């Protein structure tokens, strides 16, 4: 009989753990037996307490790894912390991201640059450092959280969708380059999900999106986190270069 914990003995880095999907991922990974470097922008007392609580509840290591993804020096130091731990890095989940809604013609240049900086450059560069470790180990699973907007090009989502489409493309290229060395790379493309991010959407837009969703409900952060657990686990050893839409059927 298989052990119930599909991530037993695995160590994972998850970015954007303070809220939303990342918060759910942190709990689901811990529940399924993984040790986690929980990354967030800043180490607040609430976050520290939460990490300690999860660690106690599930009997795994939860190591806060707080840094600003857009600060090169801070990122470098975070990678050093991971390396110094002497723990294998089996999984990297690039979940941190920022949203932005504006029509193409009204997109401010500064906002466009922030989108690319946070949603594309930061995870790209972080992945370079972590995949280097995975290649040395000869194994690893990279999970990048994009968006259905990256595939569908929704009105009002030009900058956000483009930044996520860039991430998606980079993931596919990476999967081809490192597959033979035992490292997998896949994308999760959530549809409309119950997080702070939808706070930026009007009720009318949310209702319209739900009406276009076959399951007629908004996804929960756990819905997305469960798929990440699968991609992180050894249940998906032959899955790479894939984009999994977790969108309730749009």
């Amino acid at each position, binding site marked *: *009989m*298989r052990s*119930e914990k*599909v991530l037993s003995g695995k160590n994972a880095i998850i970015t954007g753990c303070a809220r939303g999907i990342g918060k759910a991922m942190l709990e689901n990974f811990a529940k399924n037996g993984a040790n986690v470097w929980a990354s967030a922008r800043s180490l607040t007392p609430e976050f520290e307490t939460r990490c300690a609580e999860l660690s106690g509840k599930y009997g795994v290591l939860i190591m806060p790894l707080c840094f600003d993804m857009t600060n090169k020096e801070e990122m470098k130091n975070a990678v050093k912390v991971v390396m110094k731990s002497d723990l294998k890095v089996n999984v990297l989940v690039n979940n941190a991201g920022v949203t932005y809604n504006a029509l193409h013609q009204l997109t401010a240049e500064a906002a466009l640059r922030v989108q690319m900086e946070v949603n594309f450059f930061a995870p790209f560069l972080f992945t370079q450092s972590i995949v280097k470790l995975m290649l040395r180990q000869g194994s690893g699973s990279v999970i990048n959280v994009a968006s259905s907007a990256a595939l569908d090009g929704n009105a009002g989502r030009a900058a956000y969708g483009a930044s996520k489409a860039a991430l998606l493309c980079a993931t596919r290229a990476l*999967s*081809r380059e*490192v*597959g*033979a060395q035992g490292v*997998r790379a896949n994308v999760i493309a959530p*549809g409309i999900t119950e997080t702070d991010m939808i706070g930026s959407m009007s009720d009318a837009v949310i209702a319209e999106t739900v009406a276009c969703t*076959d*399951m*007629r409900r908004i*996804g*929960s952060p756990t*819905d*997305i986190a*469960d*798929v990440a*657990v*699968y991609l992180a686990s*050894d*249940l*998906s*050893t*032959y*899955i*790479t*270069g*894939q984009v*999994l*839409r*977790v*969108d*309730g*059927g749009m």
Partner: protein
Amino acid sequence: MLLSGQNAVVTGCLRGIGKKTLEVFAEQGANVWACAQQVDEEFEKFCAELAQRTGTWIKPIYFDLTDTDAIKAGLKAIMSDKQPIDVLVNVAGFTKDAIFHMTSMEQLKLVFEVNYFSQILISQYITKLMVRKKRGSVINIASISGLDGSRGQLAYSSSKAALIGATRTMSRELAQQGVRVNAIAPGVIDTDMNAVVPENVIAGHIKDMSIQRMGSSSEVANAILFLASDLSGYMTGQIFRVDGGMK
């Protein structure tokens, strides 16, 4: 366990991906109606041992997918158990390879009979029960050839493409009734079906993969497990490639 206490119907359990799926499902706590083409003593023994080892029940059900009456009789036997059905996996399928110009209508119709018409019939029966319970997951086993095309497999690839179309439509119609429908498109998997493919053809495929080897039946079975389980509760209408990253 990911399928504790759930009941599943799996077709094509005699060999390959179906047999592995049966095994993985039972290990994950599911009871299974194990459908196979013909009565087989060794298979009966396999099912009995697996059930005992995993503390589940496994009922062999026999029908030939070219025989509509036999399929209906098999489905009625399943339904007469009066158990809820949480999962349906349509694995059974077969191929009759020939290039486009050499494909006879007879071959084409036979392949569609097994790979398409029978799957629809089975899904109609089983999802009717799922809809009543407002819960269910259907997994159709298609093929990358249904997405990419495949030289020498006109009948097979088009039947799988048809199954993909059906999967998408079924998912749209059944989502609001609590039933998810997804398909898996396996790549080159180490099964009997590929044992007849010349080595150089297999090697050519492997060269085009990110993970440079054939997949195993258990790797496909684990993907089926994911789609069957609540881990994929917000996924429907998806065609999921299990192909080691093919170009």
